[in-house]
């Protein structure tokens, strides 16, 4: 296993930046998720690392080797594809053996390695079948197996779970995580599902429009999103984001909504808002930091329930504060109905504040 370093990676298609100066350092044995909406450049980045498409600029190091101009076959990496890319005309055994054959290993070694990998993934009984005779989950295991048989410097995975049904996906998620822990493998994992990234990765790289937005541990990304894009993308349900205007109310700093309501700020938050380039500020709050009251409370904002979504152990509700919806959560036993008036209290210590112009997070101190 090896360290992987991407320095100032650029890929252009005609006049478009598909990957726009992305730099990421991945330590030996680290599991990094590249995450973002479709078209954000994450798969392109992965293909650049694999060498499947030529670089437009920047450097890629795998281990201590500069691999910019190396063919995929010489980069010593393994890759798992979204559609598994199993060779349809070969049996499972031959699929697993293919990478070893290409490296001209002796027949006996090939067989031993294939059987070992098959045993680990519990697919020994499938070895003589062809890919189209396998279920989605089985195909997924074979694809993983083909990556495992060798001892590559890094594993690249391109949305490997997105073709599976929900239940299987959760199961394979923990298996891949286990497999990473056992092998101490360096993994670069592309997904559009932020939940996958948060649950599996040591670090996540959030991308949008070809630009790396934030590269941190999932906990850090969740707690301190650097801008409104990351804030809105990571976490489910999404963080509520409300554009407001900074001002003063009887000498106290407040955020005012054009709909008429306002939120007084703690002195700490008032200092943060003062750092914004203009008076425009975007307020962010996760459902877990919002408290719902059935009667007026000082500092709480009056609103009206729009929809109620019970999920079993927690109930989500969308609440209109003036013209903006925020998502709140309640204990399932609390009775709440649509159109009911409620009061929403913000936790001043856990408010996210963003500059309304630059969309960047306003720093804490």
């Amino acid at each position, binding site marked *: 296993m090896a360290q992987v370093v991407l320095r100032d990676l650029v890929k252009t298609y005609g006049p478009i930046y598909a990957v726009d100066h992305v730099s990421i350092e991945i330590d030996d044995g680290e599991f990094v998720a590249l995450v973002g909406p479709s078209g954000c450049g994450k798969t392109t980045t992965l293909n650049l690392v694999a060498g499947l498409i030529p670089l437009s600029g920047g450097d890629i190091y795998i281990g201590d080797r500069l691999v910019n101009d190396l063919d995929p076959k010489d980069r010593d990496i393994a890759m798992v594809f979204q559609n598994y890319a199993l060779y*349809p005309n070969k049996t499972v055994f031959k699929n697993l053996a293919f990478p070893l054959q290409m490296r001209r290993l002796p027949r006996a070694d090939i067989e031993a390695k294939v059987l070992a990998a098959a045993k680990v993934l519990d697919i020994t009984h499938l070895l003589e079948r062809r890919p189209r005779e396998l279920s989605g989950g089985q195909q997924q295991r074979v694809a993983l197996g083909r990556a495992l048989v060798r001892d590559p410097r890094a594993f690249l995975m391109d949305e490997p779970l997105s073709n599976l049904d929900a239940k299987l996906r959760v199961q394979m998620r923990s298996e891949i995580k286990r497999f990473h822990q056992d092998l101490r493998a360096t993994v670069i994992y592309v997904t559009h599902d932020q939940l996958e990234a948060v649950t599996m990765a040591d670090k996540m790289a959030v991308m949008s429009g070809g630009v790396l937005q934030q590269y941190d541990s999932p906990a850090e990304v969740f707690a301190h999103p650097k801008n409104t894009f990351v804030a809105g993308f990571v976490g489910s349900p999404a963080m509520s984001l409300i554009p407001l205007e900074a001002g003063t109310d009887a000498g106290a700093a407040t955020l005012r909504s054009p709909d008429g309501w306002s939120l007084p700020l703690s002195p700490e938050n008032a200092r943060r808002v003062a750092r914004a380039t203009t008076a425009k500020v975007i307020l962010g709050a996760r459902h877990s930091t919002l408290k719902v009251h059935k009667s007026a409370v000082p500092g709480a904002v009056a609103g009206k329930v729009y929809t109620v979504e019970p999920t079993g152990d927690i109930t989500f509700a969308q609440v209109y504060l003036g013209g903006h919806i925020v998502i709140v959560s309640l204990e399932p036993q609390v009775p709440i109905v649509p159109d009911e008036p409620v009061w929403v209290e913000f936790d001043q210590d856990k408010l996210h504040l963003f500059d309304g112009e630059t969309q960047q997070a306003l720093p804490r101190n």
Partner: protein
Amino acid sequence: MSAIADTPAAARPRRRKPIDGWRWAGRGFLVLMLLYTAVPMIWMLLTSIKSGFAAMQFPPQWWPSEPTLASYQKLLDPQNSVGQDFLRFFWNSLFVSSVTTVLSVAVAVPAAYAFSRFHFPGRRFLFFSVLLRNMFPAVIFLVPLFILMRFLGLVNTHGSLILTYMTFGLPLAIWLLKGFYDNIPIQLEQAARIDGATRFRAFLVIVMPLSMPGIIATAIYSFIGAWNEYIYAYTFLTRNDQLTLPVGIQRFFSENTTDFPGLMAASFMMSVPVVVLFLVLQRYFVRALTEGAVKH
């Protein structure tokens, strides 16, 4: 539509709706098409087993009163001058068609693959200029090509035919194969390249076997086209021992204008190889058309 749904008839079970009318019309139509298609072929076979005298009667013998294989024996007898010629023509056709097929596939496969996978500038222009070749009739090219072949020293050789036939087979071959390659996920090659194959090896080991139906279809198309071609062979070849079947038969029967059983037997013999080839491999051909031409 809603007006129909409101009538009581629509409430009745589906099976009793007058769809049957369409079904019977379809069957009737198929019977007519079968007659149109098959009667000439049957008449060819019936005539070919008559004697010359029996064929020239009016009203005709609907069924040969004394069936004979004499015409076939004559064509296949190497001792007889007619048989000698026919077997020679047959061999020439087989040679020209086979070589054309092999070369066409060898040229079409990489070109189709490139058109499918690569995005080099001018790709679309080149693709359509290749397709445009299909637009032009042989006659336009006849004189200049004849002069060109004379310049290359290829007149009266099978090389002139092979070179020419390749170009009329290529456009459709490239088009069909491109459709095939478009349908093979690029991830398969990428996986192979990561697994340690060069780009060319990935193509050879992974992509080629998957495109075999397309390649077979392309080969059939080239073979049949070459086997049946007439104008170039008629123009480029003058020596009797070089002729291919269509021209050879035409030459022969312009001298023996009344030997209809012989003519029908020769037509039948000439059709057998391509018809058999096509019937055996037709599923590849239909599949290639579906994947290559239609699903664009």
